[in-house]
Protein backbone atom coordinates (compact mmCIF):
# COMPACT_ATOMS: atom_id res chain seq x y z
CA UNK A 1 0.00 0.00 0.00
CA UNK A 2 1.34 3.43 -0.88
CA UNK A 3 1.80 6.06 1.81
CA UNK A 4 -1.05 8.15 0.39
CA UNK A 5 -3.42 5.16 0.37
CA UNK A 6 -2.52 4.47 3.99
CA UNK A 7 -3.05 8.12 4.90
CA UNK A 8 -6.51 8.33 3.35
CA UNK A 9 -7.50 4.89 4.68
CA UNK A 10 -6.49 6.10 8.13
CA UNK A 11 -8.59 9.27 7.83
CA UNK A 12 -11.58 7.33 6.45
CA UNK A 13 -11.36 4.64 9.12
CA UNK A 14 -10.87 7.24 11.87
CA UNK A 15 -14.09 8.96 10.75
CA UNK A 16 -16.00 5.68 10.57
CA UNK A 17 -14.74 4.89 14.08
CA UNK A 18 -16.50 7.98 15.48
CA UNK A 19 -19.79 6.92 13.87
CA UNK A 20 -19.40 3.42 15.34
CA UNK A 21 -18.74 4.92 18.79
CA UNK A 22 -21.87 7.04 18.54
CA UNK A 23 -23.90 3.95 17.57
CA UNK A 24 -22.39 2.10 20.54
CA UNK A 25 -23.17 4.70 23.21
CA UNK A 26 -26.63 5.39 21.77
CA UNK A 27 -27.49 1.70 22.02
CA UNK A 28 -26.13 1.50 25.56
CA UNK A 29 -28.22 4.46 26.67
CA UNK A 30 -31.49 2.73 25.91
CA UNK A 31 -31.00 0.17 28.66
CA UNK A 32 -31.32 2.47 31.64
CA UNK A 33 -31.20 0.65 34.92
CA UNK A 34 -29.51 3.25 37.07
CA UNK A 35 -26.13 1.56 37.51
CA UNK A 36 -23.13 3.48 36.21
CA UNK A 37 -20.75 0.53 36.38
CA UNK A 38 -23.24 -1.48 34.39
CA UNK A 39 -23.39 1.26 31.74
CA UNK A 40 -19.62 1.34 31.32
CA UNK A 41 -19.30 -2.45 31.47
CA UNK A 42 -22.21 -2.73 29.04
CA UNK A 43 -20.08 -0.88 26.52
CA UNK A 44 -17.61 -3.76 26.62
CA UNK A 45 -20.28 -6.15 25.41
CA UNK A 46 -21.31 -3.86 22.54
CA UNK A 47 -20.21 -4.95 19.08
CA UNK A 48 -20.23 -1.28 18.02
CA UNK A 49 -17.72 -0.40 20.72
CA UNK A 50 -15.40 -3.26 19.73
CA UNK A 51 -15.69 -2.19 16.10
CA UNK A 52 -14.83 1.37 17.19
CA UNK A 53 -11.79 0.18 19.16
CA UNK A 54 -10.56 -1.98 16.29
CA UNK A 55 -11.06 0.78 13.69
CA UNK A 56 -9.31 3.25 15.98
CA UNK A 57 -6.28 0.99 16.44
CA UNK A 58 -6.01 0.19 12.71
CA UNK A 59 -6.43 3.88 11.81
CA UNK A 60 -3.65 4.80 14.26
CA UNK A 61 -1.27 2.15 12.87
CA UNK A 62 -2.02 3.28 9.28
CA UNK A 63 -1.38 6.89 10.34
CA UNK A 64 1.98 5.99 11.91
CA UNK A 65 2.99 3.99 8.82
CA UNK A 66 1.92 6.83 6.51
CA UNK A 67 3.71 9.62 8.38
CA UNK A 68 6.86 7.52 8.62
CA UNK A 69 7.04 7.99 4.83
CA UNK A 70 5.40 11.38 4.36
CA UNK A 71 6.22 14.86 5.52
CA UNK A 72 4.20 15.44 8.70
CA UNK A 73 3.41 19.04 7.73
CA UNK A 74 1.82 17.65 4.56
CA UNK A 75 -0.07 14.78 6.23
CA UNK A 76 -1.27 16.62 9.33
CA UNK A 77 -3.70 19.18 7.76
CA UNK A 78 -5.37 16.34 5.84
CA UNK A 79 -6.60 15.06 9.22
CA UNK A 80 -9.09 17.93 9.20
CA UNK A 81 -10.82 16.18 6.27
CA UNK A 82 -12.03 13.86 9.05
CA UNK A 83 -14.34 16.59 10.40
CA UNK A 84 -16.02 16.96 7.02
CA UNK A 85 -16.21 13.20 6.61
CA UNK A 86 -17.79 12.67 10.05
CA UNK A 87 -20.36 15.40 9.33
CA UNK A 88 -21.33 13.69 6.06
CA UNK A 89 -21.40 10.18 7.58
CA UNK A 90 -23.39 11.37 10.62
CA UNK A 91 -25.98 12.83 8.26
CA UNK A 92 -26.26 9.63 6.24
CA UNK A 93 -26.07 7.01 8.98
CA UNK A 94 -27.22 8.80 12.15
CA UNK A 95 -29.66 11.29 10.66
CA UNK A 96 -27.88 14.25 12.29
CA UNK A 97 -28.94 17.58 10.90
CA UNK A 98 -25.80 19.51 10.00
CA UNK A 99 -26.85 23.15 9.82
CA UNK A 100 -25.02 25.67 7.66
CA UNK A 101 -23.75 27.27 10.87
CA UNK A 102 -22.19 23.96 11.88
CA UNK A 103 -20.64 23.62 8.41
CA UNK A 104 -19.23 27.16 8.76
CA UNK A 105 -17.68 26.28 12.14
CA UNK A 106 -16.21 23.08 10.65
CA UNK A 107 -14.69 25.14 7.80
CA UNK A 108 -13.09 27.60 10.27
CA UNK A 109 -11.67 24.75 12.39
CA UNK A 110 -10.27 23.03 9.26
CA UNK A 111 -8.59 26.29 8.24
CA UNK A 112 -7.08 26.60 11.72
CA UNK A 113 -5.70 23.04 11.59
CA UNK A 114 -4.15 23.73 8.17
CA UNK A 115 -2.48 26.87 9.57
CA UNK A 116 -1.22 25.02 12.67
CA UNK A 117 0.68 22.66 10.36
CA UNK A 118 2.43 25.63 8.70
CA UNK A 119 5.99 26.43 9.57
Amino acid at each position, binding site marked *: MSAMTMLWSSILLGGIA*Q*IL*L*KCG*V*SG*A*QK*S*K*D*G*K*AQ*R*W*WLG*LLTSGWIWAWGLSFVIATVLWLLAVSQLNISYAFPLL*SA*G*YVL*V*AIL*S*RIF*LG*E*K*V*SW*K*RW*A*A*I*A*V*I*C*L*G*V*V*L*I*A*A*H
Partner: protein
Amino acid sequence: MPEEVMAEIQSPTLENSTERIASKPGNRVAEMAVLGSVLFAAGGHLLIKSGLNALKASGLPSGVVPRVLSYLLQPAVMGGLAIYGIGTMLWILAVSKREISYLFPLSALNYVVVALGGKWLFGESIPGARWLGILVVFAGVWLMQRWGAGESQ
Protein backbone atom coordinates in the same frame (compact mmCIF):
# COMPACT_ATOMS: atom_id res chain seq x y z
CA MET B 1 -13.22 18.58 37.18
CA PRO B 2 -16.64 20.24 37.55
CA GLU B 3 -19.09 18.51 39.88
CA GLU B 4 -21.76 17.85 37.28
CA VAL B 5 -19.26 16.11 35.00
CA MET B 6 -18.05 13.97 37.92
CA ALA B 7 -21.66 13.07 38.70
CA GLU B 8 -22.19 12.06 35.09
CA ILE B 9 -19.11 9.83 35.01
CA GLN B 10 -20.25 8.14 38.18
CA SER B 11 -23.81 7.63 37.06
CA PRO B 12 -24.39 8.34 33.38
CA THR B 13 -27.56 6.25 33.37
CA LEU B 14 -29.42 7.54 36.42
CA GLU B 15 -33.10 7.51 35.58
CA ASN B 16 -33.65 10.12 32.87
CA SER B 17 -30.26 11.67 33.60
CA THR B 18 -29.66 12.53 29.95
CA GLU B 19 -32.93 14.38 29.68
CA ARG B 20 -32.63 15.90 33.14
CA ILE B 21 -29.17 17.30 32.53
CA ALA B 22 -29.59 18.20 28.88
CA SER B 23 -32.79 20.11 29.59
CA LYS B 24 -31.13 22.34 32.18
CA PRO B 25 -30.63 25.77 30.68
CA GLY B 26 -27.00 26.59 30.03
CA ASN B 27 -26.02 22.97 30.48
CA ARG B 28 -22.45 22.28 29.48
CA VAL B 29 -21.77 18.67 30.52
CA ALA B 30 -20.80 17.50 27.02
CA GLU B 31 -18.61 20.57 26.46
CA MET B 32 -16.89 20.10 29.84
CA ALA B 33 -16.33 16.43 29.01
CA VAL B 34 -14.81 17.40 25.64
CA LEU B 35 -12.55 19.95 27.32
CA GLY B 36 -11.50 17.34 29.90
CA SER B 37 -10.94 14.77 27.16
CA VAL B 38 -8.76 17.21 25.19
CA LEU B 39 -6.70 18.18 28.25
CA PHE B 40 -6.18 14.56 29.33
CA ALA B 41 -5.42 13.32 25.80
CA ALA B 42 -2.97 16.16 25.16
CA GLY B 43 -1.46 15.78 28.65
CA GLY B 44 -1.04 12.08 27.94
CA HIS B 45 0.68 12.83 24.62
CA LEU B 46 3.07 15.29 26.26
CA LEU B 47 3.91 12.83 29.04
CA ILE B 48 4.55 10.10 26.45
CA LYS B 49 6.80 12.52 24.57
CA SER B 50 8.79 13.33 27.71
CA GLY B 51 9.19 9.60 28.37
CA LEU B 52 10.44 9.03 24.82
CA ASN B 53 12.86 11.96 25.19
CA ALA B 54 14.23 10.39 28.37
CA LEU B 55 14.66 7.04 26.60
CA LYS B 56 16.41 8.67 23.67
CA ALA B 57 18.85 10.32 26.08
CA SER B 58 19.66 7.02 27.79
CA GLY B 59 20.02 5.07 24.53
CA LEU B 60 17.66 2.58 22.82
CA PRO B 61 18.07 -1.17 22.32
CA SER B 62 18.28 -2.37 18.73
CA GLY B 63 15.65 -4.63 17.22
CA VAL B 64 11.95 -3.82 16.84
CA VAL B 65 10.50 -5.87 19.73
CA PRO B 66 12.99 -4.79 22.45
CA ARG B 67 12.60 -1.23 21.26
CA VAL B 68 8.78 -1.27 21.41
CA LEU B 69 8.98 -2.96 24.85
CA SER B 70 11.36 -0.32 26.15
CA TYR B 71 8.91 2.34 24.91
CA LEU B 72 5.93 0.71 26.61
CA LEU B 73 7.72 -0.01 29.90
CA GLN B 74 9.08 3.51 30.33
CA PRO B 75 7.21 4.90 33.42
CA ALA B 76 6.29 8.27 31.87
CA VAL B 77 5.06 6.52 28.71
CA MET B 78 2.89 4.18 30.82
CA GLY B 79 1.54 7.11 32.82
CA GLY B 80 0.86 9.03 29.61
CA LEU B 81 -1.06 6.10 28.14
CA ALA B 82 -3.15 5.82 31.33
CA ILE B 83 -3.97 9.54 31.25
CA TYR B 84 -4.80 9.22 27.56
CA GLY B 85 -7.20 6.42 28.56
CA ILE B 86 -9.02 8.75 30.99
CA GLY B 87 -9.32 11.27 28.15
CA THR B 88 -10.88 8.56 25.98
CA MET B 89 -13.47 7.78 28.69
CA LEU B 90 -14.41 11.46 28.87
CA TRP B 91 -14.74 11.49 25.09
CA ILE B 92 -17.10 8.47 25.24
CA LEU B 93 -19.14 10.33 27.85
CA ALA B 94 -19.34 13.42 25.63
CA VAL B 95 -20.34 11.38 22.58
CA SER B 96 -23.18 9.83 24.60
CA LYS B 97 -24.55 13.34 25.22
CA ARG B 98 -24.39 15.22 21.95
CA GLU B 99 -24.27 14.83 18.17
CA ILE B 100 -20.97 13.58 16.75
CA SER B 101 -20.91 16.14 13.90
CA TYR B 102 -20.95 18.82 16.62
CA LEU B 103 -18.41 17.22 19.00
CA PHE B 104 -15.76 15.83 16.67
CA PRO B 105 -14.53 19.17 15.24
CA LEU B 106 -14.14 20.44 18.84
CA SER B 107 -11.43 17.82 19.33
CA ALA B 108 -9.18 20.02 17.13
CA LEU B 109 -8.38 21.78 20.43
CA ASN B 110 -6.06 18.83 20.97
CA TYR B 111 -3.59 20.24 18.45
CA VAL B 112 -3.70 23.61 20.19
CA VAL B 113 -2.97 22.15 23.63
CA VAL B 114 -0.19 19.92 22.28
CA ALA B 115 1.42 22.87 20.42
CA LEU B 116 1.28 25.09 23.53
CA GLY B 117 2.46 22.26 25.79
CA GLY B 118 5.33 21.47 23.40
CA LYS B 119 6.42 25.09 23.61
CA TRP B 120 6.23 25.40 27.39
CA LEU B 121 7.55 21.96 28.32
CA PHE B 122 10.07 21.17 25.60
CA GLY B 123 10.89 24.62 24.26
CA GLU B 124 9.55 23.78 20.80
CA SER B 125 9.07 26.91 18.73
CA ILE B 126 5.67 28.10 17.47
CA PRO B 127 6.05 30.05 14.21
CA GLY B 128 3.75 32.99 13.46
CA ALA B 129 1.46 31.10 11.11
CA ARG B 130 0.93 28.45 13.78
CA TRP B 131 -0.13 31.09 16.33
CA LEU B 132 -2.63 32.28 13.74
CA GLY B 133 -3.84 28.71 13.29
CA ILE B 134 -4.30 28.36 17.06
CA LEU B 135 -6.41 31.54 17.09
CA VAL B 136 -8.46 30.35 14.11
CA VAL B 137 -9.13 26.96 15.78
CA PHE B 138 -10.29 28.81 18.93
CA ALA B 139 -12.55 30.97 16.76
CA GLY B 140 -13.99 27.89 15.05
CA VAL B 141 -14.58 26.10 18.37
CA TRP B 142 -16.25 29.22 19.79
CA LEU B 143 -18.39 29.49 16.66
CA MET B 144 -19.33 25.82 16.89
CA GLN B 145 -20.48 25.85 20.50
CA ARG B 146 -22.11 29.26 20.14
CA TRP B 147 -23.96 28.73 16.84
CA GLY B 148 -23.47 25.14 15.72
CA ALA B 149 -24.65 23.32 18.85
CA GLY B 150 -28.26 22.98 17.72
CA GLU B 151 -30.60 20.80 19.76
CA SER B 152 -29.04 18.67 22.46
CA GLN B 153 -30.08 15.05 22.35
